[in-house]
């Protein structure tokens, strides 16, 4: 595989695509939002259980490409136990990473496992795939029930 392509489809991403974590409906969710990417028809539901401003549980359901599915899966793994504010900050950083604004700055380390999405910056058309779950999660937190689109 070409090196740029390898950077995009890292083993972690392929693994999360194949067996996504927290891929389920959540009956007792306090927050839920729907996300849609009209470019490719990707569709995602994000569920959150928030108590005292802390994300106790997070899950997702939906259809998408490897990038969007792995991104949603990794997002749910990393958000558990975080406060709403921390989640929002993490999204900003993640967005900077996939749009190439972070560069080699040391803050990439704060992203932990999410750093595997660094390869996305070389594929501008795929930024929306990587950020769909995050946009949807933010809307769920804000309680905006309207469907999110990445357009």
């Amino acid at each position: 595989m070409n090196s740029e392509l390898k950077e995009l489809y890292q083993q972690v991403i392929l693994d999360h695509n194949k067996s996504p974590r927290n891929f389920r409906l959540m009956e007792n969710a306090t927050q839920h939002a729907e996300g849609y990417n009209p470019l490719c028809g990707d569709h995602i539901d994000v569920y959150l259980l928030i108590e005292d401003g802390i994300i106790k549980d997070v899950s997702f359901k939906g259809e998408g490409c490897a990038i969007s599915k792995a991104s949603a899966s990794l997002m749910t793994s990393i958000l558990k136990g975080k406060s709403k504010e921390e989640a929002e900050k993490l999204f900003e950083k993640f967005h900077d990473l996939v749009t190439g604004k972070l560069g080699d700055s040391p803050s990439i380390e704060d992203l932990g496992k999410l750093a595997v999405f660094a390869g996305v910056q070389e594929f501008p058309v795929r930024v929306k795939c990587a950020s769909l779950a995050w946009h949807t999660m933010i809307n769920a937190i804000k309680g905006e029930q309207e469907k999110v689109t990445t357009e």
Partner: protein
Amino acid sequence: MNTQAAASVAVSKNSYDINRIREDFPILSKKVHGKNLVYLDNAATAQKPTYVIDKVNRYYTSMNANIHRGVHALSQEATEGFESARIQIKQFINALGKNQIIFTRGTTEAINLVASSYGRWKIIEGDEIIISHMEHHSNIVPWQLLCKEKNAKLKIIPINDKGEIIYEEFERLVNERTKFISVVYVSNSLGTINPVKKIINYAHQFNIPVMIDAAQAVNHIRVDVQDLDCDFLAFSGHKIYGPTGIGALYGKVELLDAMPPYQGGGDMISKVTFEETTYNELPHKFEAGTPDIAGAIGLGAAIEYVNKIGIENIKEHEKSLLEYATKKIEEVPGLRIIGNAKDKTSVLSFVLENIHPHDIGTFLDFEGVAIRTGHHCTQPVMQRFNIPATSRASFALYNTKEEVDVLVTGLKKIIEVFG
């Protein structure tokens, strides 16, 4: 006219000289990610031969002027170039008169013109307009807008699992409220060739006018408006090896004559006072403003090019490519073809089990292969087959069996990585 560059030796005595044809298209020698470009996104837009590029270039370097009103030499030359492109189109689709050919920005604008002009004029509350389930969004939304405005109804001809129109259902939809029918000749996402002549015949028994979206037809099969007896027909230049931003609408004279103008402006009038304006004759009545002159000349050149190779030869070549590709692609495990109509043009839409079309598209790009992934502006087709998207390889007159092999090898590699 200098036509000797147009595929002069590409087709000789029943042999289709593919290598010679490929040389006519400079972009085909381009490398993508270090690989030879394998361009299989022709249903989105086709590549342009040097013959077309040169004609457009020559217009700007030696003929550029505004048309129709100038008395100077350049303006006359530009007018002649523009109007002879109209004649090329007229002959190409076998229209009776060149005044029946209206230049538009493309198929989309042509459909909007008819929906706006004929539709607003004729359609009233309670009327019904019939389209099919496999229309491109450009043959759905203009009618939807019209129906909303007039409180009319849009009726949809269903399609079967092979991706064919269910003709009996069409006849069942036609009733005294049916006032217009607009159907696609060839589906861009499935490749299906629809029985439009049969549809037109039936509709005409009840005096219902029919519009044909021929955007994906004119580049693959012979289109004859007199034989079809369609009332309107639209196509785009860029799918038939011409420039983008130019296309044509064909219409029957009695309809075009009676219809109100679509846009107001220069060129479409014969006399203007603040009290009243009289409109220019056909086709100028529908061509307000300075048109894409270079585009029209380019489209005329593209038709000349296609004529030189011969639409029947193109059809033969593409048919054998589709047969080969359909067979070959079945080697790919977990692959399902979407669109298995009996009559098809060279479009191969497919889904791979558990691998999203977007990932396929990105992956193939690194093999040099350009395909389309997504809903192809036919979201109702995707809903019909209960899929979010497909991958689509579409073949043109310059594609080869070797390129099909590159595609299939690429797909097999993807399965290794994602499987």
